């Protein structure tokens, strides 16, 4: 039996250790994500939808599409082998694009991830997990952004929680091109609302509807934050969050999205409470909503 002298193994071991260290430092390189508010808002609105991240296989194509459609501008950042682009509207960061390739054979779908404000990520996670939620990605802190984690609700709809280190954005009417609304489609809207109420402390309002389906509004600080809606089950429908961008004219915006390579998923239509909405997908298939809003349509301010 031939024994290898330890000194002959030494270089290999050192090399392996150094290689591992290099891998760790690359992976651990932090994204320089911008603060949600500059200067800090000093406000906290638990339950408010405060951010959205698009994961896409083609960052440049996504920038071109959303920039052309909504007038967003972009600031790129880089860490490790990944690129991240911050979408800006009127100089304010409103969302992020994360580039990540889809490997051949992978059945993955680009998606806008919805971020909901919390005061403390760990506490929100504990409540979510105790009520049937699951952890998708554990908490991570980004210096200027804050702490965030990705969870799924009991039906599997994925969302993120974010404890912003610069406070939450103030409650203003969304400008055209900004996120204005979010909806959750769920097999059991009542059970879903109960889950989110436990995690975020929402007030839940049962909205009237003639379609036999359940439509609920989640509110915090006396503002509507999102809706929870039941759908009649089909094999290919899964619970999901969907975010809407405010536009001046839904029909025109949907047509423009199609002209730029997107497609319409839900044709422009009148919503139950008035106004128009539609659902479209960007060229890579990531769905998002379009919604118009007249400033006079806002009900009496509660504050």
């Amino acid at each position, binding site marked *: 039996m031939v024994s290898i*002298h*330890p000194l002959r*193994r030494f270089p290999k071991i050192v090399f392996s*250790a150094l290689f591992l260290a290099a891998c*760790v430092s690359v*992976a651990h390189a932090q994204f320089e994500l911008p603060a949600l508010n500059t200067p800090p808002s000093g406000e906290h609105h638990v339950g408010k939808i405060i951010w959205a*991240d698009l*994961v896409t296989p083609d960052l440049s194509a996504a920038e071109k599409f959303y920039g052309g459609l909504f007038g967003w501008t972009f600031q790129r950042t880089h860490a490790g082998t*990944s690129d*991240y682009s911050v979408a800006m509207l009127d100089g304010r960061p409103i969302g*992020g694009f994360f580039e*990540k*390739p*889809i*490997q051949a054979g*992978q*059945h*993955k*779908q680009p*998606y806008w991830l919805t*971020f909901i404000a919390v005061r403390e990520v760990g506490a929100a996670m504990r409540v979510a997990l105790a009520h049937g939620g699951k952890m998708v*990605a*554990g908490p*991570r802190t980004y210096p200027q952004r804050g702490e965030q984690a*990705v969870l799924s609700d009991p039906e599997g709809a*994925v969302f993120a929680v974010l404890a912003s280190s610069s406070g939450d954005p103030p*409650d203003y*009417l*969304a400008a055209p091109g900004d996120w204005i*609304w979010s909806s959750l*489609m769920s097999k059991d809207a009542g059970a879903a609302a*109960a889950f989110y109420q436990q995690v975020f402390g929402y007030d839940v*309002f*049962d909205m*009237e*509807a003639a379609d036999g389906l359940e439509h609920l*509004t989640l509110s915090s600080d006396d*503002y*509507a934050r999102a*809706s929870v809606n039941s*759908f009649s089950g*089909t094999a290919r*429908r*899964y619970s999901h969050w*969907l975010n809407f961008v405010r536009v001046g004219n839904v029909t025109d915006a949907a047509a423009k999205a199609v002209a730029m390579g997107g497609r319409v998923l*839900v044709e422009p*239509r009148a*919503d*139950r*409470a*008035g106004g128009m*909405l539609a*659902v479209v997908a960007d060229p890579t298939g990531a*769905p998002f909503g379009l*919604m118009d809003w007249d*400033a006079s*349509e*806002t*009900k009496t301010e*509660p504050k």
Partner: protein
Amino acid sequence: MNAVRSRCVAGGCGILAVVMLVACAVTGVGVDVDGGGEVGYVGGYYQPYGYEYGGWGRDYHVGPARGNYGHDRGGEHGAPHGNVHAAPSHAPAYRPAPAGRSAPSIPGRSRGH
């Protein structure tokens, strides 16, 4: 003596490598949100293929209360005016908002005002 020393050094390096790997696992470095490779960012989530967003009928009503709309059924499951589906016969899983409160709308204050 040298052989013993070399073994110690080699062993130390091996332990160091193991410790670094464990540290990766504990701190979450390298955690991939959907199991498809290194991402280094919490939020890079791809949805499984096959989610269906289209195909809705005329019942796709998901928007917030607007203007004079938005009468809710509050905690009583009452019917302030028409166009209301039957109240559920069972108690909802959630805690309904207090009776008498109408569903709020989105913020209406413009920036700079």
